[in-house]
């Protein structure tokens, strides 16, 4: 069975080729959509079968390399097209193909009637292909292929409405920022490969080989450099500080794209990568701290921006950035399982949220279109009270919101709480953990606040849509609603895969399935951590206490949102007028884009222009043409020695004779 793992990425690839090459001829949306969805679903089925086979193996044998063919081999460098099947990759494959299937189905409805329908599905399939390569590749290079591949698809899909400048700008921005990260990824790969080869004569970039040789790596030093490089890659792909600004802009893409790529799968690649390389990251306390701090800061920072956005998708986008921050926080404190767990639950609820928002936008757009209004269909200020028009959507949306806000019993609670607990209790960062926890907790507060702000502004209150448009608002078709329901279901129950031991024990020993399943992958890192840190023992009471705190935080956030947006909607306005500078700064995303433009983009352009006009044209060509001019001028001068007068010529000759003879006479 494992030998057939290549089928998993192959199906979407075939889907891509069919839709990409023939889609234009096929024209029929149903066929195209079906091809796309079936391709991904086939992958999902295969992934499930692989998963079944994998859990059939003893835990310590759950790591299988499947080589397809040798890709690049030059000297001691060797990279295969080969897949690694282990619990982590298997889980990722399941999440990716599962959610993708749902979103593909959703897209059939959502993208109905769009120009370039086939293109959309082709890209989407290509994305799934790349993402599967990323998570299943058994070496760094193949992972990088997927890594860049998903970046490409992200670029293509963000720029799907390419005639809109903002869309193509956003696509480009995403690609370029990702490239900055990729630069880090590449450097990390080079350093890793070179250092290990040079010092230990182990020339490999294959994960299992690397893990096997993990003990060759020292603590810190070169490992810090390597892991920081990789982490730079992760910040690019997963939209962390400082490379997060592309993600909110990426909302220019169609909503399913936002759901699939910019929430559920691609942006979590960085988290996955750190998980994959956990044995290396754990060996650099500095990097771990960096990861944790960046994650915590991003979580909080993005959450602040999320509170002031009015575009429904932008709020979700900042929420995504913030949630990704949580995942990195988890990775940074050595809670790899928790990070992956949150990755999974986040995939469910955020996909659900995005798809729900898509349904809202779709409906809004439709309604506004009917009354020929040019109001923004994504602006929450134009919404309100949609609950009664779109009850199912509301229901699913609310479920997912509760999940993300961290209300006990829903998936987000389990994963987020695990992260916060680990941030507090981790032995890695000593005194820093309180701060990390505090950041996480604040972010949780803000999350609960802005998510419910979103719900209230969108679904509750009075309907603020342009008069006459209400009657055109209606629930979405089944092809859209069913995926929402599926995702909402998982958003609600997805957390039970990884019930914390504390709660599990309470309910009669429900095991933490996820932790057991993933433990072989992180075994090396865990072992190292245990060996090298003093594991403080925290009491159950403390853990219960913190858990309670986070519940309180969530409730407080929700209540504030309720107060501000339901009970007394004037307060936010008063608040903004009281602190205009602060509001403007938050509303304008702390001016980070402008700062980047000022610090990087514009100087580069100016430098380019200077080098071109100044150096290329003026200096180099100036020298080249200058030499030519001087030579020509010299020719122009010496030709005037040729006066045409015979006696001048005779003088010259005589002069020559005299000089020659004189020289030999008097030397």
């Amino acid at each position, binding site marked *: 069975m494992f030998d057939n793992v290549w089928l998993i990425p192959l199906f979407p690839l075939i889907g891509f080729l069919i839709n990409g090459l023939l889609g234009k001829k096929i024209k029929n949306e149903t066929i195209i959509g079906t091809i796309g969805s079936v391709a991904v679903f086939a992958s999902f089925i295969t992934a499930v079968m692989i998963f079944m086979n994998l859990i059939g193996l003893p835990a310590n044998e759950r790591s299988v390399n499947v080589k397809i063919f040798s890709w690049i081999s030059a000297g001691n460098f060797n990279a295969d097209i080969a897949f690694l099947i282990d619990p982590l990759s298997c889980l990722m494959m399941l999440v990716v193909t599962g959610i993708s299937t749902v979103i593909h189905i959703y897209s059939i409805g959502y993208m109905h009637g769009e120009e370039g329908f086939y293109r959309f599905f082709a890209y989407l399939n290509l994305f799934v292909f790349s993402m599967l390569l990323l998570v299943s590749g058994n070496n760094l290079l193949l992972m990088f292929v997927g890594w860049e591949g998903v970046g490409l698809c992200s670029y293509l899909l963000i720029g799907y409405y390419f005639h809109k400048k903002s869309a193509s700008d956003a696509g480009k921005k995403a690609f370029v920022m990702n490239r900055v990260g990729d630069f880090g990824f590449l450097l990390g790969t080079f350093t890793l490969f070179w250092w290990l080869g040079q010092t230990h004569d182990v020339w490999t970039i294959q994960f299992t080989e690397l893990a096997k040789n993990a003990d060759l790596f020292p603590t810190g030093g070169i490992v810090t450099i390597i892991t920081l490089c990789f982490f730079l890659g992760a910040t690019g792909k997963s939209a962390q500080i400082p490379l997060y600004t592309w993600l909110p802009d990426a909302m220019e893409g169609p909503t399913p794209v936002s759901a699939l790529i910019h929430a559920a799968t691609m942006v979590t690649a960085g988290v996955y990568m750190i998980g994959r390389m956990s044995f290396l990251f754990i060996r650099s306390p500095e990097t771990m701290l960096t990861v944790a701090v960046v994650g915590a800061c991003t979580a909080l920072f993005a959450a602040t921006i999320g509170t002031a956005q009015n575009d429904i998708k932008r709020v979700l986008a900042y929420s995504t950035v913030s949630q990704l921050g949580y995942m990195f926080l988890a990775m940074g404190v050595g809670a790899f399982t928790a990070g992956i767990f949150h990755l999974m639950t986040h995939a469910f609820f955020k996909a659900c949220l995005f798809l729900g928002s898509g349904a809202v936008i779709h409906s809004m757009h439709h309604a506004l279109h009917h009354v020929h209004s040019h109001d923004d269909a994504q602006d929450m200020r134009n919404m309100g009270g949609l609950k009664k028009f779109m009850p199912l959507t509301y229901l699913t949306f609310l479920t997912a919101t509760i999940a993300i806000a961290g209300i006990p019993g829903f998936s987000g609670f389990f994963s987020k709480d695990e992260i916060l607990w680990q941030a507090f209790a981790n032995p890695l960062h000593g005194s820093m953990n309180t701060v990390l926890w505090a950041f996480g907790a604040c972010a949780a507060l803000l999350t609960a606040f802005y998510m419910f702000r979103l719900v209230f502004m969108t679904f509750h209150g009075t309907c603020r849509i342009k008069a006459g448009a209400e009657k055109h608002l209606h629930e979405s078709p089944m092809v859209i609603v069913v995926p929402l329901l599926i995702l909402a279901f998982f958003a609600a129950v997805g957390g039970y895969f990884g019930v914390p031991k504390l709660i599990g024990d309470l309910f009669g020993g429900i095991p933490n399935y996820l932790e057991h399943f993933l433990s072989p992958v992180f075994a090396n890192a865990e072992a190292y951590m245990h060996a090298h840190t003093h594991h403080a023992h925290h009491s159950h009471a403390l853990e219960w206490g913190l858990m309670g705190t986070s519940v309180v935080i969530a409730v407080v956030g929700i209540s504030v949102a309720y107060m501000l947006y339901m009970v007394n909607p004037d307060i936010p306005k008063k608040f903004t007028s009281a602190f205009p500078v602060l509001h403007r700064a938050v509303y304008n995303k702390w001016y980070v884009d402008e700062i980047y433009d000022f610090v990087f983009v514009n100087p580069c352009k100016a430098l380019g222009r200077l080098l071109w006009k100044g150096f290329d044209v003026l200096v180099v060509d100036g020298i080249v043409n200058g030499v030519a001019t001087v030579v020509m001028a010299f*020719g122009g001068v*010496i030709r005037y020695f040729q006066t045409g007068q015979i006696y001048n010529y005779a003088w*010259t000759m005589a002069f020559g004779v005299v000089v020659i*003879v004189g020289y*030999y006479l008097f030397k």
Partner: protein
Amino acid sequence: MDINVAQLFQTINLNVIMPEIILSVLGMALLLVNVFIPSKSKTYLVWLSLIGIVLAGFTTVTGWGSNITSFNGSVVQDNFAMFFKIIFLVAAGLAVLISDQYVEREECNYGELYPIILFTTVGMMLMASGTDLMTLFLGLELMSISLYVLAGFNRANVKSNEAGMKYFLLGAFSTGFLLYGMALVYGVTGTTRVAKIAEIVSGMPSAAGNTMLLIGMFLLLVGFLFKIAAAPFHMWTPDVYEGAPTPMTAFMSAGPKAAGFAALLRLLLVAFPALKPEWSDLLWILAVLTMTIGNFTALRQDNIKRMLAYSSIAHAGYALVGLTAANSTGTSGILFYMLSYAFMNIGAFAVIILVGKKGEPNGTVMDFAGLGRKHPLLAVTMSLFLFSLAGMPPTAGFIGKFYLFSGAIQEGYIWLAIIGVMNSAASVYYYLRVMVFMYFKPAEEEFDWVTVSAPVALSLAVSAAGTLIPGVIPSMILQYAQQAVKFF
């Protein structure tokens, strides 16, 4: 000194100067024929001259490999002389072929032209085969005086007059130096025989310290450097080349230059090899000066004949590089180069003749505009010559330069070679400029007057073949050039 007449006649072997005799006799005969046949067209003279030239050439090549002196050691038939004779005959043959159409058009179709060309050739041949200062002098003067006439041949044309007069006065002036040099060398060595001079000079304990000998040698060189147009004795070249009738310019640039090199080689390498340290310094500087002045000035010329005149100065400079090296690579390079130069330069002038109109109002580079469109074959041929002049492979010009510069490098004159190639790169500009006009610019005038007569077509074909084939299979000629310089 008792002279045994019988012995004297034994030393005279007329076979040695058979080509010269053929051409002289033919020349005189043609003078008469020209008077007695009152035909307005002189084309028959072209073919008659050509027959004579081919005959002379045939006579020359049959003697290949021999080394016979005659006239008591004042004339020699050796490979070196024969190689040069072939060059002169090629130059003369091509000149004869391209003359007819030109003189007809310019209305100076006097029959004397062909005999004078033949006499010039005889003079050049004597320079190549002369091994006595007297023979060299006689050859030189025979050549020069004929050339003065040829330069001023178009009597009605002011430019031609001026060219003749300038050439004459300056030529005679240089002859003065030459003779004074000969006199001093004679005074020091007591002989005019080249071989004997060599013997005595190499026998002298301090030849390099003998001021009179050195001055004599340098003055002697001046006379020949004037003929090859080496700076600073080059000043006459542009004016004379521009003013002289175009076929004569072509002839002048190829033949006498080669003759000058023949004499220089003979003198420097046979008579004064002992003084090499002295003259190689001088030649080094002169080579650089000549190349640079020639090329740089050519960059700024619009008149194509004048441009080629400066280019011919530059080419003399390249050849001087080979002479400075004075090894078999360099000298065989000179021989090869002179032959190639005869082909490519006369070929180029043939095209200029075809493109020119009566009175040559359109002698500028710009007048070639559009030639590539109207007469593609002519333009391609011209391009071939120009590329060869620029030293691009796979033409003879490249191989020639390769050997010249190789000679210099072999002797350690790296900088000379570098200056040479840099000059060569700069020269590309003005050759390309002609091509720029031929191909890249639209025609300003219709080329309706361009007709190619049979002799010119023949000359173009021969020139093109002579430019291209030795470029691809140079050993064909190089091996003979090698044999020719073996005795140095």
